[in-house]
């Protein structure tokens, strides 16, 4: 079998006496959606931070496309094709939706030290950015400053940015958070198709979406992966039911 796109081995991270990540190993394979679920405080966000590069693990290895990325910074990992969305939307709020996506196109081209040509006349930035906005259904809001977009639209914009980055893997941190049922359904349908382009590591609390989308699910409790398996396996796993789904075994 081909090497996984993202391969995490025995990752550990403690904050003082609290072990937030306790020997986590998991991988993300081409074409799949791998969902990461777990109760609040299980260490999902800490894990995402370590993969994205904002937090350094104490030990363990993170390999992306066959390369050890443990020592790389956030920007370098993004340039390799690790596209993430944030749990709380993180945008350049004064810029329009379009210019936010154009920034990502610019980042993926590695061309930020160009001082003369106005970006707004630059088709090589604008066209891919508009295409990404169209895919998430935000094209008609392209000119609106990010600060004036609705909550759901900002979530869509985060996805458009990750698309425009030409990501080789997506790291989506609760993309459905705060979206209405309609928005969640539309996003679920969209992510369903997206896995063909690049695999998705999906952290999500919306179980309906997780069960509809995931090829595999890993359950994180107290910093440990207590189970990994298909939707059926996880649903029927007594340990998981007890620890997480809140039912007595």
């Amino acid at each position, binding site marked *: 079998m081909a090497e996984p796109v993202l391969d995490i081995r025995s990752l550990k991270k403690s904050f003082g006496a609290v072990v937030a990540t306790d020997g986590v190993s998991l991988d993300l394979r081409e074409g799949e959606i791998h969902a990461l679920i777990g109760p609040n405080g299980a260490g999902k966000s800490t894990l995402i931070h370590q993969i994205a590069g*904002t937090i350094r693990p104490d030990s363990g290895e993170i390999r992306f496309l066959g390369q050890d990325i443990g020592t790389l910074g956030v920007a370098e990992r993004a340039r390799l094709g690790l596209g993430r969305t944030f749990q709380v939307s993180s945008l350049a709020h004064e*810029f329009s939706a*379009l210019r936010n996506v154009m*920034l990502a196109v610019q980042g*993926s081209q590695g061309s930020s030290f160009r001082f003369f040509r*106005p*970006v707004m006349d630059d088709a090589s*930035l604008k066209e891919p950015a508009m295409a990404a906005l169209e895919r998430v259904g935000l094209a008609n809001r392209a000119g609106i400053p990010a600060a004036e977009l609705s909550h759901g639209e900002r979530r869509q914009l985060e996805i458009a940015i990750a698309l425009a980055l030409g990501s080789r893997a997506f790291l989506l941190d609760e993309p459905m958070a705060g979206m209405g049922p309609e928005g969640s359904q539309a996003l679920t349908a969209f992510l369903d198709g997206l896995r063909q382009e690049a695999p998705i590591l999906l952290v999500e609390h919306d179980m309906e979406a997780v069960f509809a989308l995931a090829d595999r699910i890993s359950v994180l409790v107290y910093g440990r992966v207590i189970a990994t398996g298909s939707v059926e396996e996880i649903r029927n796993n007594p340990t998981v039911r007890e620890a997480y789904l809140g039912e007595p075994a």
Partner: protein
Amino acid sequence: MTRERTVNLVLLLLVPAAALAAQAIGETFYVTLATRIAILALAATGLNIALGLGGLVSFGHAAFFGIGGYAAGILATHAFNQEPLLFGLPGSKQMLVIWLTSLVASGLVAAVIGAISLRTSGVYFIMITLAFAQMIYYFAISWPAYGGEDGLSLYVRNSFPGLNTLDPMTFFLICYGLLVLGLLVFATLRASRFGTALQASRQNPTRVAAVGITPYRIRLVAFILSGMVTAIAGALYADLNRFVSPSMLSWHMSGELIVLIILGGTGRLFGPLAGAILYILFEFVLGGLTESWQLFLGLILLGVVLFARGGLIGLLAGKERHG
């Protein structure tokens, strides 16, 4: 035409019109006043790249202003005394040579100051830039070869090929021409890929890193460009006064540049010019009425910060719209 463009155009024409009118009625003092406006606006336009676009509150831009000033003073002194400068190179009375020297010297110093200070942010950044500028200030004070505390006089204003720089109007036009060039640099940067990354780094550095751009590098280049523009203004200021002193390097000067930008409108293309016009007018009008005019300036600044965040430009042209 948007409202901001109209306001900008009026401001752009106002200063030369005032200078020409003053020249016509033989009041060359006002031409000098207009020249000061142009020079201060250029210095603040430089700072506006770091502060306005990048959100980098440098409290040490006097360092670059002073480096430009000393470049003019030192080169002119050596040329006048016909003493070689470094490595047997002669001094120069040519503005073009002086400007080039200012650019190189300030660029190098800004690279060093920026590389260290940009590892910090917020109030630490403010303090470190201040500390660097004060170091250079005390160095200038204790350097007797170039006047030390007393400063350095230029015997005659430096020259520009084909122009009589001693004529106040001609010198004003040189300064104003450079201001317009500085504004063009600012506007071009702001609209470019680099400017996009710089402004995004102010709004949300986490987002910038997540799309593969390292904010530190962007900020460092911005800081260097910013210092270089301010240095050119310093060289002109030395030529205007035919005098350079450590006061050009002092923290008062750094503060004055920040005040200009806040008065005019932070990050706005014409903020520095609007601020410089206001500042010089206050100094001239209020300064004529009372010794303690800066008290009133302080009150006005307080008013701007509390009630008119966008400064004069914001008041006249409304909120800024980005692409």
